[in-house]
């Protein structure tokens, strides 16, 4: 099945810093989503981005479907950005959203 790798596994930042999270996947996809799991365990949808670039406030994402990777940019990080960021994909001819192992982000004041 498709493999989804996220890097880095852990990231510690000071408030105000910028960061880039990466997601590599091993096969063509027709769905790619980024989620934030907050410290209370809720999975928050950030982006639905099988290709192209999107922005939402301080967050933006870009997916290169040909090179099989996606990037999530967090600018001017805040303590509320802390949590685990997951990338998840659906390979063509499957119906399964497969999750990566996540990037744990801690933002300190």
């Amino acid at each position, binding site marked *: 099945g498709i493999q989804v790798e996220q890097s880095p596994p852990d990231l510690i930042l000071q408030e105000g810093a910028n960061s880039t999270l990466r997601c590599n996947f091993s096969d063509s996809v*027709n*769905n790619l*989503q980024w*989620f934030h*799991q907050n410290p209370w*365990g*809720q*999975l928050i*949808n950030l982006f*639905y981005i099988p290709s192209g670039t999107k922005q939402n406030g301080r967050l933006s994402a870009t997916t290169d479907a040909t090179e099989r990777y996606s990037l999530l940019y967090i600018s001017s990080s805040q303590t509320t950005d802390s949590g*685990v960021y*997951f990338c*998840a994909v*659906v390979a*063509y001819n499957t*119906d*399964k*959203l*497969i*999750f990566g*192992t*996540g990037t744990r982000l801690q933002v300190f004041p």
Partner: protein
Amino acid sequence: DTAVSQTPKYLVTQMGNDKSIKCEQNLGHDTMYWYKQDSKKFLKIMFSYNNKELIINETVPNRFSPKSPDKAHLNLHINSLELGDSAVYFCASSHRQGMNTGELFFGEGSRLTVL
């Protein structure tokens, strides 16, 4: 006006018991899912239903049985609970767009603890 809601949010029970988790979505989606998140935070798909029909059934013990009475509901029943079943179970839904699954939306999770 919660989009995907699960009950209960917390469940503590003894080994050997049978328990159910309920899920309802009011998004008008036609596909619903159950995911399991283990203690290492890894999220794995268990089941998926499309218009009340089972379309994904991963390698899950037979003690787990999903039931979809209608498109808006997908329940998970677990028999003879074991210690290893302790996890957070997430329900999700999406609207199929042709061959694509569409964007998935998740409930808040149900934390199951088996003693």
